[in-house]
Each structure stands twice: as C-alpha cells, then as structure tokens.
C-alpha cells in the first residue's frame, strides 16, 4: 500500500525561484500550504521550478497554480501563468493542463437571508399554507360528498382496505394505551378520593374524563402518529416518483383516487376507535375500583350512568370526526407539498405528524369552549 509521506521541507525559496520537490498531491499539499503561508511575501520571484517534482494530482496542480497566480499578483506580472513554470516534465504538464483553473467559471454561494427576512418568510409561508390547506380541504370535501352518489373514479375496495389500515390495525395499540391510561388515572384518583371517603366518585371522575377528553385525545394522537405519518409518506412518495402526475395524465383525479378513500375510512374509523378507547379506559377504572377500592361492579355501573350523557357522547363523536379529518387533510397536504427527492418524504412525514397533533389540540380547545356555561 502506498504510504503517505508527510514530508517536512519540500518548498524552498532560492534566488528568485520557488522550488518544489517530491510528490505534490492531496496528502502533501496541506503542509506545503502552511509553508507557503509562512513565506507570504513572494515579491521578486519569477519562476516556479518543478524539476524535482515526482508526481502530482489535482490538489497539487491547483496548489501550484495558486502559487503562480499569487506571484503574478504580487509582482504585477502580465504573462500567462504557465510561463512561470520551469523544468516541467510532460506528465506533470499534462496534469496541470487538465486541472487548469484558467477558464473555470466560478459562482458564489447565495448569501443567507438576514434574520427578519427569515422570520417574515416563515410568517408568509404559514399564512399561504393555511390558505392552501383550506383549498385542499374544500377539494377533499367536494369529492367526498360527490363520491357518495357517483361511484365512478373511485378505486374499488379501497375504502375497505383503508379502513383496515387506519382502523383495524390501530385497535391493539389504542386498546392497550387506553387501558393503561384508565388504570393510571383511576389509581391516582383513588388514593385521593379514599382520604375523603368519596370512593364511589371514581366512576364519575373516570367516566367523565374518558368520555369528554381522554378517549378522543389519546386516540387522535395515536392515529396522527400511525396513520397521519403513513398518509403523508405514501402521498409524498407518489408525488416524488411522479405517480400523481401519471394519474393526472390518465385523467384520474389524485384527490378523488388517493385521498378520498382515506377520508371516508378515517370518518368511520375515528369515532369507532374513540368509543373503543372510552370503553376500555373505563374498564381499567373498573379493575381499580374492584381490586383497590372494593366497590362492586354494579355500584360502579350505576354511578357511571349518572355522569354519562348522550350530549357529551355526541360532542365527542363530532369532535373525533374533526380530529380524523384534520389528520387526513394535513397528512395529504404535506404529502402533496413535498419537494425534492427522497429526503423530502421524511420531512413531509415529520411536519405532518407535528402539525396534526397541534391541530388536534387546537380543535380540542375549541370544543372545550362548548362546555363553558
């Protein structure tokens, strides 16, 4: 294997000459560069002697050219650079020619925008995004409503397939997390309630919390993470690989064909998942009530009926449908917006999950206002 010689002294200044020795390549240039910068005054030098140069590569060639042009500048010489070289062998001359900088056009990097311009851009892009999301949402609603009557242009079996993906496959994780949340909430509460001897109110507390907040919220966050990300990455991949363009050229509306089935599936699955979450969360509470507080299941059940109202259930169902819609639309939005190649897909997925979780929370706040007297 070729050893790297980090030689000590291979650049000399001798009466009006710069002398280079040995291999002038990517491994020796760093040191030579340092030696050159220590000299730094090249006035009076007229020649670069390459007699003892044994080999050279692009780095070496450009290094020599750099010396030459510095000499030219410092001495105000007006001659072609290669007139400065002396004792150049053919091999080395060839290499220098191949890598010659003389007719290379240089470009400078675009300067970074100042801070306030960046902030301004951010605000503007946020507002345009909002606008675009609204347009996409209205498109999706339009095609979704139209699709109820007109079956043409929709993919056969896609609703079932999407429902399995978004709904069925989320059941285990939603169930597990809801059970755990139910257990935790009621255990925490049980300790406190016991101090006041208000054991039975655990049913009120847990039932109300699961029904109005926790069930919908937990499910929405799980679904954003699971389905929101997969929607965004699926659509982004289709966009990047020109599949969406191909659909358009087959006169198939991509929104109708790709997004609307997901929209239908989400509209059905989200409320069902939320109901599942509420029931299992409450079941978790029942365990705690029976095992820790010694409340009978019947007592728990009777107490529960006092707090669960149809109105709350209805609001939660509506709320969770909104959650589902926002997840689909935001996922699709970032999927459609993707730019560049494969790395854009990852970004789209991240943005979509973050944004849909934030949106879910905002929608939740709005619905909470409904409960204010």
């Amino acid at each position, binding site marked *: *294997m070729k050893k790297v010689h980090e030689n000590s002294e291979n650049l000399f200044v001798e009466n009006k000459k710069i002398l280079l020795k040995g291999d002038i*390549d*990517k*491994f020796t*240039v*760093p040191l030579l*560069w340092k030696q050159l910068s220590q000299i730094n005054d090249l006035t009076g030098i007229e020649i670069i002697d390459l007699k003892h140069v044994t080999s050279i*590569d*692009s*780095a070496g060639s*450009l*290094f020599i*050219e*750099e010396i030459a042009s510095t000499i030219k500048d410092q001495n105000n010489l007006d001659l072609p650079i290669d007139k400065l070289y002396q004792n150049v062998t053919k091999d080395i001359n*060839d*290499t220098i*020619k*191949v*890598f*010659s*900088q003389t*007719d*290379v*056009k*240089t*470009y400078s*990097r*675009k300067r970074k925008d100042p801070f306030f311009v960046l902030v301004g851009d951010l605000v503007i892009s946020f507002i345009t995004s909002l606008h675009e999301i609204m347009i996409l949402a209205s498109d999706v609603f339009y095609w979704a409503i139209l699709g109820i009557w007109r079956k043409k242009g929709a993919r056969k079996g896609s609703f079932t397939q999407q429902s399995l993906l978004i709904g069925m496959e989320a059941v285990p994780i939603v169930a597990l997390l809801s059970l755990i949340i139910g257990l935790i909430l009621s255990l925490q509460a049980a300790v406190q309630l016991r101090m006041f001897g208000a054991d039975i109110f655990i049913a009120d507390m847990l039932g109300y919390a699961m029904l109005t907040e926790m069930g919908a919220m937990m499910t929405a966050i799980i679904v954003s993470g699971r389905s929101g990300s997969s929607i965004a990455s699926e659509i982004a991949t289709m966009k990047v690989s020109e599949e969406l363009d191909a659909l358009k050229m087959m006169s198939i509306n991509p929104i109708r064909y790709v997004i609307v089935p997901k929209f239908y599936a989400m509209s059905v699955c989200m409320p069902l998942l939320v109901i599942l979450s509420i029931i299992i969360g409450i079941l978790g509470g029942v365990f705690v009530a029976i095992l820790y507080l010694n409340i009978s299941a019947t007592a728990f059940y009777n107490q529960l009926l006092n707090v669960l109202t149809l109105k709350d259930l209805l609001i939660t169902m509506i709320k969770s449908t909104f959650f589902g819609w926002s997840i689909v639309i935001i996922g699709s939005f970032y999927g459609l917006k993707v*730019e*560049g*190649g*494969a*790395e*854009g897909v990852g970004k789209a997925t991240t943005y979509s999950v973050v944004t849909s979780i934030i949106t879910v929370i905002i929608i939740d706040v709005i619905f909470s206002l409904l409960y204010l007297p």
Partner: protein
Amino acid sequence: MNNSEPIIQVKNLVAKYSEKTILDDISVDINRGEITVILGSSGCGKTTLMKNILQLQRPASGQIKVFGYDLTQIDEMDYQAIIRRIGVLFQNGALLNSVDIFDNISIPIEQHTKLPKEIIKKIIEVKLHLVNLSHAIYLNPSELSGGMRKRAALARAIALDPDILFCDEPSAGLDPLTSASLDELIINLKKQLNMTVVVVTHELASIHRIADKIIFLDSGKLLFYGSLKEAKKSGIEQIDTFFKVGSF
C-alpha cells in the same frame, strides 16, 4: 506490485442473488491505463459484476484482486485504503440528496485529506468544469435533470483523483453532444492522468470512441474479452448481432 500486472484480476467469480446464479465462473483481467467497456443485454449482470469487484456484494465464490490485493481476504483497513483509490459513478447517480452539489463533492475530500478550504473549493470548481456543470455548484440534486445528476456524480467520482474509475452507464439519458464530451473527458483522464477506467455502456458511438478492451457478458457467462477489432472479427453470433442491431 509491478506496473505491468493487471490492475484488476477476477478469477472464477460466481455471483448469486439468493439461489439464482447471475454471474457464472467469470475470469478476466483488466489492464492498467486502459478503458475497458462491459457490454451485454439489459439485466445480464453488468452492474452485478461491478458491485462484486467493489465488494458491495459478496461474491458466492471466486477471487477479486485489485492493485494486487485480494479483496475477498483483505481486512477492513486495507480495503478502505484501496477503495479510496477507486471512484465509482453509480447507475442512478446516487448523489446525497440532503446537501448541495458542492458538499456532495467536498465530503469525500474533507473526509480523506487535510487540504485547506481554498484548495478544496478550487478542486470542486475544476472537477465540475470538467463535466461541464460549473453553474450547478450550489444547487441541490433535486434541482438537476437526470443527465446533470449523472455528470455531478461523475465529478464526485473523480474528486480524489482515483487510480481506477468505474462508470455504470455514464451516458444513459444524455444527448449525443454531452455524451461525446463525457467520452472525451474519460479519454483525457486515461491519457493524461493514466487512469484505468471501467465503463458499462450500451452506446455504440461511445464504445467506438473509448473502448480499448471489451468484456461481453451473456447469460451470466463471459462470452468475450479483447479489443474492439478482435470483437468484431470474433464471429461470435451475439456480438455480431449486438453491433449490427445497434448501428442503425
């Protein structure tokens, strides 16, 4: 090693994807300072041969010697040192998508040398100039056309002045003029820098311009190895058809 020894020696190479044999008992030597063109129909295993030589895929059996070192036996450190002296242009370019062209080319240079920034910048500018892509230096790969990406990838492949350059279809998707200028660059690299080049290509015009030697693969076997003239005189049916059909 002495300089007359072949720079790449492939002995009894067998390559498989799971159970399917793609390359069957290939033995071939590639000479220093020559341009060797790998020919064969689509899907016959040209890319597979290249990847096996580079050890991106492990050969099922056989021996691969590069610079006289057996890559199938060598340890990781030595392998890295050899790979640094090899440049590869992949079939689809394989640029890093998350950074611009400048960084795509500067990354290998920064990783493997201690060159000052000024020189690195000059190297990048010159290499891009060689592939005629100076203006794209600060663009992202996603902002380039397919052919431009190929050329940027070629600039990256020669960033470290490799001794051996592998090109998988450098001119696919390029217009005849750009393709011809790339051929000229490859010939220059060979003549003036004494680079050894291995090219996979289908373009007859290109083959006529650059090929010193030809490797012709057919259904996993090495059908022919030799110069272009010999290939045309060989009388092997598949090779005759290849040159006839292609020369419309």
